[in-house]
């Protein structure tokens, strides 16, 4: 009887990885099909950023830096969507830049996916400015800290910065009421902290992919006023938005939808880790009995 148990231990501890892939895929597909939605609430990391956007006077200029590529967009794009929704709802002016070559297209996805669909009265140039991508990594931030027009002669449509009402009174980074960087790596949030947030004393919030969040926590809450870590952070911002603005209550939001599959995936991983350890303990017990 004990021998049989020990066999199970070895089996559990050395499970073929294809079983893991199969069960994880099945779990994810089922969750996506059923549209599982779980309750979410803002954490202490996300709340200060939400409060900052909420309490800025209407018309405040906010700089959004979309520093990510399509690989991390499923985590970072919902954050950008949520912050853009919130900022436009409060009547703030937005300015989009990017330190990634794919940035122009990522910005276009946000302007078309949120602004054009949900805020038809909002106009490019008047309410928001798309400056787009510039090469040079952190040196772009350094140059923007001195003068915006040292890097950008105009917006993506070719209109000079001085003619954009969205950037009225904004000449350098310090003129922005808030900077939010959505970052998937280098250059990204860390460079915004080192070259803008900290030296200029600029209010800086950020979003990053889940795996990158731990490296930014040392900067919170002094150099970074709020942090959205992964799709969880985005879902928390959406939850704050729903709590603060009932008009968003029924609206489908991508991060909240994504949390169901992620939660199920986490549970499956935990179950496999537990199974692996159970197998290890059973095998160890068998070895001890044998000796």
């Amino acid at each position: 009887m004990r021998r049989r148990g020990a066999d199970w231990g070895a089996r559990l501890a050395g499970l073929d990885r294809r079983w893991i892939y199969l069960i994880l895929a099945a779990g994810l597909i089922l969750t996506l099909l059923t549209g599982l939605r779980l309750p979410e609430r803002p954490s202490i990391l996300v709340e200060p950023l939400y409060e900052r956007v909420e309490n800025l006077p209407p018309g405040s200029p906010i700089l959004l830096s979309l520093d990510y590529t399509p690989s991390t967009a499923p985590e970072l794009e919902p954050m950008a969507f949520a912050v853009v929704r919130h900022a436009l709802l409060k009547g703030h002016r937005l300015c989009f830049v990017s330190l990634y070559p794919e940035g122009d297209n990522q910005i276009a996805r946000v302007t078309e996916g949120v602004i054009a669909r949900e805020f038809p009265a909002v106009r490019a140039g008047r309410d928001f400015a798309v400056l787009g991508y510039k090469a040079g990594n952190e040196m772009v931030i350094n140059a923007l800290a001195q003068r915006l027009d040292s890097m950008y002669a105009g917006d993506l449509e070719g209109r000079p910065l001085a003619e954009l009402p969205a950037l009225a009174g904004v000449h350098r980074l310090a003129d922005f009421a808030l900077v939010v960087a959505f970052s998937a790596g280098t250059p990204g949030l860390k460079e915004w902290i080192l070259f803008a947030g900290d030296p200029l004393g600029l209010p800086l919030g950020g979003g990053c992919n889940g795996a990158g969040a731990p490296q930014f926590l040392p900067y919170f809450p002094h150099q970074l006023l709020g942090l959205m870590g992964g799709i969880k952070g985005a879902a928390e911002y959406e939850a704050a938005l729903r709590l603060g603005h009932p008009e968003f209550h029924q609206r489908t939001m991508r991060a909240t939808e994504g949390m169901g599959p992620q939660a199920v995936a986490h549970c499956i991983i935990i179950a496999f880790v537990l199974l692996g350890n159970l197998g290890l303990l059973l095998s160890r017990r068998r070895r001890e009995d044998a000796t």
Partner: protein
Amino acid sequence: MRRLIPRLILTVVGVVLVLTPFFVRPEAGGRGPLPVFFAYADENFSVWFNVLAVFAFILGGANLLRTHALRVRERGRDWPYSLLTLVAFTAVLVLGLFKVGGPPGLQGSVSHGDSALTWIFDWIYMPLKSTLFALLAFFVASAAYRAFRLRSWEASLLLAAAFVVLIGRTPFGVTLTAWLPNVLRFLRLDELSIWIMKVPNTAGWRSILIGISLGVVAMSLRLILGIEHAVLGGRR
């Protein structure tokens, strides 16, 4: 001479940029030629760097073309992939440079909704990159299953922390321990997971960051003082 001039440029630029923050800018009340000079340097060195960065793209593209063209010509290992790279590179470059489908003119946006480049981005690049990255979930699951084992005291600690963070970052974790009274709030899984990330994790990260920064300072000093030659193609 080939080494001396780049080394001189490196030293001068390095010293000027290090000294820049120590001078009050003219608009903040700094007087005399030095504040004016350092403000000018601070403003313009970044712009010059960014202009150079654009040329790096041209060099990078040329290098990619040369490497893969050579491999195709010599029928080297996996040369069909190199051919594919060349075709894709050329196609995207031409479509982007000439702004095919989008608004004409130098000032037209390449990310315009109707441009061919946007079509490639939305329908080829985006699905390919998302798919590749999504595969990570499966590898992470398999790696977690194999790595998180109770083999030693340290491994057990890692397992416990991983367990709390994994479950605490899901709404299940919140629901599971939401019944705990306010006095024991810190034991709620979501609070505990944030504590793990904010306290022990931050302590670890801070030490790593400070270590890296000291290394960067030391390396920068070696470069500025001309002790480190490897960056200019010389020997250390």
